[in-house]
């Protein structure tokens, strides 16, 4: 002991047992059942799409880090989340080359040019999806029915379509509940929607698994529960009021809740910590804005689905929410700045 060299460090000398990479890894865990169900429901096509976006997102992150002579940040698992989420929001028979392109865009434009993890203004996966939506509107709205009999035996030709060529549409179109409602005014069965026995993007169909994933993260304190609660609550209240006004024209709150990408968006996309406000009241306002936008776009907008744009818009105003809504500093009448 006499000649012992002691380590010195500044206080605090103990830290909580949580780390950014473990948070990200747990989000991946929470997403795996959702992805598993996507493969079960939509077959080998969905598997290929999800794998492609994940590989391209991770590969892009690694390549860009090397290009800018930085240590690769792939190990923080955030690129895996972006890739998985992007894959889960694409139609099951989406051409793989487009999916690959989406993954590159998500990381390069959605995250890396802002400075990487922690600096992105928007949810990277949604940036990728928005670009794909704008670039390939037909492919983005070509749906495939759930539980097709040949889903594990054949790969759709559109999935393997040659890059930069118009994909041949060979699939039996399976309209999503939202587009069926929007264009044909058909309401899908709500228990089918909750369990995911419907057509839609690969990972957005099974609301139950998405909710379970969210509850897992909330219990582990790795997700801000106020965000999904505020979004879903706003959607229920607003669509409930409309439904009470005229049930013939407006869909029920249950339909609104379980259709399209709302559940996936509310639980896994809007909760991106970097792109959401930091104060408790701020995130509630942020969630309410998303909820209002979703209802407005779905019911009065030209598109069947509005979750993506709702979240992207809310991401953009999130710094302003932080600027306007501040906590009062202890012992002062002044509000802390959060911008």
């Amino acid at each position, binding site marked *: 002991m006499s000649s012992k060299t002691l380590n010195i460090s500044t206080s605090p000398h103990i830290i909580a047992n949580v780390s950014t990479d473990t948070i990200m890894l747990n989000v991946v865990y929470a997403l795996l059942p959702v992805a598993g169900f996507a493969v079960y429901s939509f077959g080998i096509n969905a598997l290929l799409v999800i794998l492609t976006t994940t590989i391209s997102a991770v590969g892009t992150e690694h390549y860009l880090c090397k290009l800018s002579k930085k240590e690769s940040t792939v190990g923080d698992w955030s690129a895996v989340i972006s890739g998985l989420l992007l894959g889960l929001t694409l139609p099951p028979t989406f051409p793989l080359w487009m999916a690959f392109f989406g993954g590159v865009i998500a990381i390069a434009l959605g995250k890396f040019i802002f400075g990487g993890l922690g600096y992105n203004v928007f949810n990277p996966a949604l940036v990728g999806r928005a670009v794909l939506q704008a670039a390939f509107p037909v492919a983005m709205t070509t749906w495939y029915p759930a539980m097709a009999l040949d889903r594990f035996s054949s790969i759709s030709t559109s999935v393997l379509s040659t890059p930069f060529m118009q994909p041949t549409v060979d699939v039996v179109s399976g309209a999503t509940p939202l587009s069926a409602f929007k264009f044909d005014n058909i309401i899908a069965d709500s228990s089918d929607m909750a369990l995911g026995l419907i057509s839609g993007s690969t990972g957005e169909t099974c609301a139950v698994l998405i909710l379970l994933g969210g509850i897992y993260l909330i219990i582990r304190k790795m997700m801000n529960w106020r965000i999904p609660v505020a979004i879903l609550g706003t959607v229920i209240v607003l669509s409930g009021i409309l439904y009470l006004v005229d049930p013939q024209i407006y869909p029920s709150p249950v339909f609104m809740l379980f259709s399209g990408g709302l559940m996936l968006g509310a639980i896994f996309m809007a909760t991106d910590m970097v792109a959401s406000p930091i104060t408790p009241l701020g995130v509630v306002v942020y969630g309410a804005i998303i909820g209002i936008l979703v209802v407005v776009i779905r019911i009065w907008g030209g598109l069947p689905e509005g979750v993506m744009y709702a979240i992207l818009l809310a991401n953009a105003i999130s710094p302003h929410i932080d600027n306007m809504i501040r906590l009062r500093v202890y012992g002062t009448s002044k509000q802390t700045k*959060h911008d």
Partner: protein
Amino acid sequence: MRSSINFSQFFSGNARRGTFKHGVHPPENKDETNGLPIRQFPFSPLIILPTVQNIGSPSEIVVREGQEVNRGQLLAKATGYMSVPLHSPESGIIRKIKNVPTISGKMVPGIYLEALPSSTQEVMDGTPVELESATREEILQGIQDAGIVGLGGAAFPTHVKLKVPDGKVCEYLMINGIECEPYLTTDHRVMLEQADDIFMGIRYLLKSTGAPKAIIGIEANKLDAAEHLRSNIPEDLPVTVEVVPVKYPQGSEKMLITSVLGREVPSGGLPIDVGVVVANVATTAEIGRLLPHGRGIQERVITITGPGVKKKGNYLVPIGTPLRYVLEQVEAAENISEVYMGGPMMGVAVSNLDISIVKGTSGIVVFTSEDVKRPTKIYPCIKCGACVDACPMTLNPSKLGILAKFESYDLMADEYNLLDCFECGSCSYVCPSHIPLVQYFRLSKSIVRKRIVARKELEYVQ
């Protein structure tokens, strides 16, 4: 209260009744020592006393080399108002007067005292401070003469802290028995074993502050201490015991006042601005024990614990006992790698074992190389808001951390209340990206303070 969702809390994270806003729950690790009674620590053959043991100015040595001194004899006198004297913790011979190392790394004038083995170690008495007849000022003078500083760890001269400025009224005397630092159990044991001293101390403090009543604040993990004190309150003493939920950093006096009284100490202000004077419970016990005899402080209760210590416990250790001697006596492990003076949240890591126990040492926590959990990697801030939910001052550590990186110190102070940070470490504790936030803030604060001084000097010159 806990099970139902409070609506205002949903939006703002407001304080529940009975506690302050935010805070963290580090593992307490108090079970190993909170049941162990206070034991007298062996007298070290050599005592090394630095003259800087408190915030403020150092003490001035009044003895010479070779002089024989008795236990309790004055060794160094106070040098002004923000200073306290130093008394001999052992009977012995002054061997040397020369510079000694301190925890900050600075060498300061100090005294090497060699114990006389044959001595009885009986304590010298001075002039008692009579509770009945003493004036406010005489009590404060008595506290200064006893060399008492805040024993909770801050080592701020107690008589200065207790002074109620003209024009202010003290409504409550708050006795701080919170002890929110993990591992430490000294205040717990003092409350269980020294109730009479505490109540005697409260009598002196009530008189010196003019407060009509005293409140002892205790966290819910020390219910036995709360019960013991409650059942022993003398009938004529206006004291109540308040139990508050366990949460770090409740032992900070601002947090304690908010938890118990619901009042907020204004930014840059003192507890007396909301009618409160706070004293640590061990400090209070010391006042109650020393003043009736006119003695000076020569020893204090310290929790010596941590995975690297074999004989864990709460010990009454003479001030000036060398740390190396302490660790040998408690059989510290061979592979110790970090030693903290104080608790692991706000304590200071020791760089060398040649320093001594000082008046402000509330605990010694020893970690071996296996117990130290250091983050291997710092990730970027992901704005998760964990620090915002942890900061008891409701600051935004996330934003402050980013500004510190850009060296925007003035902005941090002017717009983001940097100077309200008291370095409790809650933000660093919870940060999943392991950003050394407190370290940034400590540095930023010192730079801001220097700039403020420089600005004032400039104004003075002009």
